[in-house]
């Protein structure tokens, strides 16, 4: 009785599993392909804005890296590489021209910082006006750590420290008293 009942049910589970697997696989592939498509479409999108030619693949890579480190000031959450704003286009062209003219990355960055300020950089430089930005979190963590350590130390030392000699004597008496009572009851 029992094996004959359990067998079909086992089969049913197997078939169901197989089916979900078969349905699941194409969906997974589909989402994977879609994500690939989305990723590449963004990259293609950003670089079909202007047709730029480079002396070497290295120069092209350098250009891409540079413009992805720079902020578009019109759409501040976009880099120069990802923005369709006209200003971003102008600045990309400027970066391109300077690069083709043989200027170094630092020279190009200095040029843009001198005109648009540190704000064009996604990575703010370390200088007195940005100390709070760079060190603020560590200072806060430090303050938090001091408080935590103090609280922990206090908790640990509290039972001993809070008892005066008188209290200790009374406690000793009470404990002796209780022990005496339990002795009596047992």
């Amino acid at each position: 009785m029992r094996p004959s009942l359990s067998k079909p049910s086992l089969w049913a589970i197997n078939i169901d599993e197989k089916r979900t697997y078969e349905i699941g696989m194409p969906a997974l592939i589909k989402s994977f392909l879609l994500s690939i498509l989305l990723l590449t479409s963004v990259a293609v999108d950003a670089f079909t804005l202007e047709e730029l030619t480079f002396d070497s693949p290295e120069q092209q890579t350098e250009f891409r890296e540079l413009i992805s480190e720079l902020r578009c000031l019109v759409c501040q959450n976009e880099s120069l590489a990802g923005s369709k704003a006209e200003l971003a286009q102008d600045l990309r062209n400027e970066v391109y021209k300077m690069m083709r003219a043989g200027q170094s990355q630092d020279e190009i960055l200095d040029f843009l910082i001198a005109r648009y300020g540190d704000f064009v950089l996604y990575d703010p430089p370390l200088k007195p006006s940005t100390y709070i930005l760079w060190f603020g979190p560590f200072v806060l963590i430090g303050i938090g750590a001091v408080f935590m350590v103090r609280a922990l130390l206090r908790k640990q030392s509290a039972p001993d420290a809070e008892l005066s000699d008188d209290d200790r004597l009374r406690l000793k008496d009470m404990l002796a008293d209780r022990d005496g009572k339990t002795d009596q009851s047992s």
Partner: protein
Amino acid sequence: MGAASTASSTPASHRVLVALVPLALFIALVALLAFGLGNDPRKVPSPLVGKPVPVFSLPELTDPGRSVSDTDLKGTISLVNVWASWCGSCRAEHQALMALSEIPDFQVVGLNWKDDAENATQVLRLTGNPYDMNGYDPDNSVGIHWGVYGAPETFVVDRKGIIRYKHIGPIDRTVWEETLQPLVAELQAEG
């Protein structure tokens, strides 16, 4: 027993102060965030303030034979106004600029930015021309050197050709009366 266990070696007033520390920190944080909310992230401070105007030369908008250059910005207090015919806020500040152009010993210099000469000229013809001269910069070749990232933007330049202030957005009565006018008066006093 209960009273003995809560008794502390630190005086009560000290403990109250310590308890207030998180509250104080919280208030400080709220104040910081409120300050941050009040700031307009679109108003990026210009690193050019305090520096001489960039060297440039552009054709004059309505008179292409003439040129407008950095030398035109020396000797007189100037308001350098970045504008374009496609820019709605520029139209809004046009009236204010018309009034400012009346001030003696003071020039309003336009930087016609990423615009079409014909459209720009027509705007000036139809609504009046507040500018003493207008540099025509259709492809943002000079705008980049001024750190322009939108229109309207206005720079206040002193007699020595040093940029003293940058205003982002349209000039209205409040901006003029509270910020620009006192600055211009100060520059006039500098002689």
